[in-house]
């Protein structure tokens, strides 16, 4: 009998929706005292899944005092995780240390990413990190947004990064992570900005606002995207402003918080239509995960 419990991670780190399968394993991680995650089946990881995976590992570390160990990581996945500074977060043990000769290069031309970065939960430190992230983004924006370089798009994304990151120290009562990447999937080019925390979640942050009545967390998420509500002040602008910008860019927003998610898809190609999809009764997951996506 091995002295560890291991589960195999399914190949579902491909997008926001398939990552739900990983969240469904969360309870098992704790109840079966899992200590190793077999990554051999994972064929692709995109930024939302990577950041959410980090949130999951951090929760495990906080609750058990132990790090989950990743084993049998395919070379391309390991290269990607090293490139995104995933292991620098100190959340996971990695038995498959990557030989530096296999590292992805970090030349100026390959900088179509912002590596995973912790956004502190305290105001002063957080502002410093947000400014650093934005400075990095500005330096790399020509590569990150190379398929979307028009008008004020770089400045729009600066606003989005700033607004969402501030929500972490203002509302979540925890720290979070940010990552951004341009990648290709099937025949599409995708740029995805992900900002997530493992804090109290949107519903709980609004518990003091009795005047805001909604029937579900998903409805509340949709409301904060379309109405200037704030859990701390008379009104707030952040998520509402982000939604306005994403609408201008013809992109999509995905927000998951607690046991609900909302996707808002602004499609410029088809008569500038906007479609909103709510999901409720998902497996609980701490905090708020947000992803902004543009596709070609």
């Amino acid at each position, binding site marked *: 009998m091995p002295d560890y419990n291991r589960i195999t991670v399914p190949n579902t780190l491909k997008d926001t929706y398939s990552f739900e399968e990983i969240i469904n394993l969360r309870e098992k991680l704790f109840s079966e005292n899992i200590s190793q995650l077999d990554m051999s089946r994972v064929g692709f990881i995109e930024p939302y899944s990577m950041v959410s995976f980090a949130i999951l590992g951090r929760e495990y570390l906080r609750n058990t005092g132990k790090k989950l160990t990743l084993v049998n990581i395919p070379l391309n996945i390991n290269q990607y995780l090293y490139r995104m500074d995933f292991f620098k977060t100190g959340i996971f043990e990695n038995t498959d240390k990557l030989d530096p000769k296999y590292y992805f290069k970090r030349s100026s031309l390959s900088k179509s990413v912002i590596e995973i970065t912790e956004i502190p939960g305290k*105001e002063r430190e957080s*502002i410093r990190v947000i*400014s650093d992230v*934005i400075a990095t983004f500005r330096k790399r924006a020509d590569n990150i947004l190379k398929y979307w370089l028009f008008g*004020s798009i770089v*400045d729009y994304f600066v606003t989005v990064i700033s607004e969402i990151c501030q929500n972490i120290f203002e509302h979540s009562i925890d720290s979070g992570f940010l990552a951004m990447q341009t990648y290709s999937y099937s025949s599409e080019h995708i740029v995805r900005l992900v900002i997530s925390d493992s804090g109290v979640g949107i519903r709980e942050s609004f518990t003091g606002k009795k005047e805001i009545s909604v029937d579900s967390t998903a409805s509340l998420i949709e409301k904060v995207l379309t109405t200037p509500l704030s859990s701390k002040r008379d*009104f707030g*602008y952040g998520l509402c402003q982000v939604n*306005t910008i994403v609408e*201008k860019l013809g992109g999509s927003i995905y927000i998951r918080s607690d046991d609900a998610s909302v996707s808002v898809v602004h499609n410029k190609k088809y008569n500038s239509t906007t479609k909103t999809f709510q999901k409720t009764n998902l497996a609980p997951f701490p905090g708020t995960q947000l992803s902004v996506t543009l596709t070609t």
Partner: protein
Amino acid sequence: MEAILLSNRYRMIISLSRLARELKVTSPDLITRPMGRSFFKKVASRLSCIQDGETILLDFEDIRVVDSSFIAEFIMKLIFESQSNTQRFYVKLSSLSDTTIMNIESVFKSYHSMNNSKIAVITDELINNSYAIGQVSDKGKDIINYLNINKSASAVELASFLQEESGYTAHLLEELHSLGLVKTETGRNTVLYCAI
């Protein structure tokens, strides 16, 4: 007071990029509530020397993004202060980037929708055919544009220009004045409305 240049008796020009350097902000972006609060504190400390009727010109040259949090803590608070200060002063914005304009418009719209109270500010450039951002009616914009060219006019002249009744025009002018979008000056026998 390096950041403040007095170009004439009635105008205080504040360069935001210079103020940013004073506050050790090296980025071209003015973001976050705490940063907005520190900028407001810095400017508020200089309001003691402001004269009644003076305009503060906020020059955003070299500033790329002003986010909604900064707008709420700096621009909006300065506008509210201009309306409540014992010395009435006026706020005008200059050299705004497209993103900053969009963010200000959005914040003002949100404020209006949640608070049922109007907020607007004068700019030194035409934005969507108007020298004001915020909740201003088309007739109000016409008055602001007229004053921008003619510098000052009486209520009678403005009513004639708008082809509106004097009562309606007076009400409109009162609203524009209370929002800080026009100034008043007392002439020989009449009150003149002036551009900011």
